């Protein structure tokens, strides 16, 4: 067994996985990764199941050190500068830390959450099948709270597998897609239009439980209290002050404010990665369109292993360069550190 030691880490970083399902009827929060695609990409790079437990790193930096042997990790999600012993590591790549080596991650440059997956995944005691941290309920493993410097994970020794990169589809841009409802009839047409036609920003007071939205005040038709009913990831409720709150992974399982709309499954991670202060809009889609997107999203995650490629490295590119004459690959030699194979067999 090797160890991966958290040498330093900012707030809002915790162990997360696909979430804790099956006990919402008892009030047990789902939790799990804010950006499921990035979690799955990082895990796929090191050969783990897509929703295995990994470290969700908030917007601030983090430093990890391998001890008692080598540790293979991968990073995906919000881009940031990363290096191992001074050598840069690209996002969406795996990298092996030799015993004593340190991975340093800078602040997120756009986005909020980066996922660090560990080959062999994080070991812990699952509750309802999940290691996901829900700090409010004191749940999660191996630490039922946000991570702190000095925490460490017992991990499998690195397998020595070749380093990989993953080619993710170009990020979808444009409005965050929603389905109106389930309580859109608690708002008149003018206020629904105000919700859909306005520019919104995520408030700095947002967290894993909810993203508060800054924009015009949305008015209710019959007051802001409804008899509590169930919530889902991406429910957008409108409390008395008219400022919508998008419910995220640590949401309560039920709520008593009218929900004007629900973010579609395929876009919940995009909303999660929207930085505080960045302006965005919503767009209403039909149930059929949302379900079509949900199926495509599930398929994208299922097929992530098909997107793995051998990592670009100087060694690889020297090989590619020498192959170029016989195989006809195009090779960029602009920067020796970042040579890219620009076409593949």
């Amino acid at each position: 067994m090797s160890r991966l030691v958290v040498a330093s880490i900012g707030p809002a970083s915790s162990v997360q996985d696909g979430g804790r399902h099956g006990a919402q009827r008892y009030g047990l929060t789902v939790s799990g990764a804010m950006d499921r695609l990035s979690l799955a990409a990082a895990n796929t790079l090191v050969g783990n199941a897509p929703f295995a437990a990994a470290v969700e790193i908030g917007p601030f930096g983090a430093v990890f050190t391998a001890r008692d042997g080598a540790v293979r990790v991968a990073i995906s999600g919000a881009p940031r500068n990363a290096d191992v012993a001074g050598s840069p590591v690209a996002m969406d790549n795996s990298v092996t830390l030799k015993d004593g080596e340190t991975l340093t991650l800078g602040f997120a440059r756009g986005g909020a959450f980066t996922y660090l997956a560990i080959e062999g995944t994080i070991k812990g005691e699952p509750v309802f099948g999940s290691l996901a941290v829900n700090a409010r309920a004191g749940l999660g493993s191996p630490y039922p709270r946000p991570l702190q410097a000095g925490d460490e994970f017992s991990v499998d020794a690195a397998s020595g597998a070749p380093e990989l990169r993953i080619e993710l589809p170009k990020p979808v841009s444009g409005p965050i897609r929603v389905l109106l409802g389930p309580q859109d009839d608690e708002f008149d047409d003018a206020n629904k239009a105000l919700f859909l036609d306005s520019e919104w920003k995520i408030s700095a007071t947002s967290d894993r439980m909810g993203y508060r939205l800054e924009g015009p005040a949305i008015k209710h038709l019959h007051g802001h209290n409804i008899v509590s009913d169930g919530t889902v990831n991406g429910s957008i409720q409108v409390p008395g002050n008219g400022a919508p709150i998008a419910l995220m992974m640590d949401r309560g399982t039920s709520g008593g404010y009218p929900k004007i709309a629900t973010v579609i499954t395929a876009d919940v991670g995009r909303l999660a990665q929207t930085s505080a202060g960045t302006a965005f809009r919503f767009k209403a889609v039909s149930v059929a369109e949302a379900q079509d997107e949900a199926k495509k999203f599930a398929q994208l995650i299922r097929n992530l292993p098909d997107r793995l490629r051998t990592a670009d490295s100087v060694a690889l590119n020297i090989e590619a360069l020498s192959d170029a004459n016989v195989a006809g690959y195009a090779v960029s030699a602009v920067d020796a550190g970042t040579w890219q194979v620009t076409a593949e067999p």
Partner: protein
Amino acid sequence: MAVPLPPPRLLPSGDSAVTVEFSRTIDDDANQRVLALDKALAASPIDGITETVPTYRSLLVHYDPGKIGFDALGEKLLPIAIQPPPPVTKARRWRIPVAYGGEHGIDLEDVAKALDTTPDDIVARHAGGDYKVAMIGFTPGWSYLSGLDKSLHMSRRQSPRLLTPAGTISIGGVQAGIQCLAAPSGWHLLGRTPVRTYQLHRNPTFLTEPGDRVTFFAIHHKEFEELDRAAEAGEIVAEQVIA
């Protein structure tokens, strides 16, 4: 043959859940239908449903859109949902000990004053009630109870407290509740129970289920301390009555 009831509204809650809404108000008949649909789905599962969450007036059905679409699921849910709920024959019944007033029920005196009566009378009315667990939500084990005596209906506090203790027994609006974990609350705190409706490493982890019946009985504060220690060690400390 039972006569079918009016169909509930099927409201999409995003692309992977549907709210089956029987009523917009707190209504015991609607809650009975919610729990009956929930039970029927547990007994004969529909392929694609991943999880159900009963509330006062609606059943939230989580499903996998890769397995079943919104319309197809609705067509399967509606025939079950319009059946009159079978009479409840065997509800589990819990007798829950409560240390009323003092440090454990800091709002008891104020509630008594507001309702122009004595704290003892409030305790008698609250402990004299026969409640049903209408839903569980907000935080693990937080049991929302219907059946609060009409004379105890009163609006919530003007400003919610940021933190109320684990085990708080409170009333708010037309509802009564058992709170398991420390949490914010705008309800009126009448007392505290040593019973854990949720305890991670105990079997069962969750004590109450939607549909269970609950009554309360008063205990002395000293007795609370003893039962609290037993509960901390994993004992259930609520009395179960088999109806």
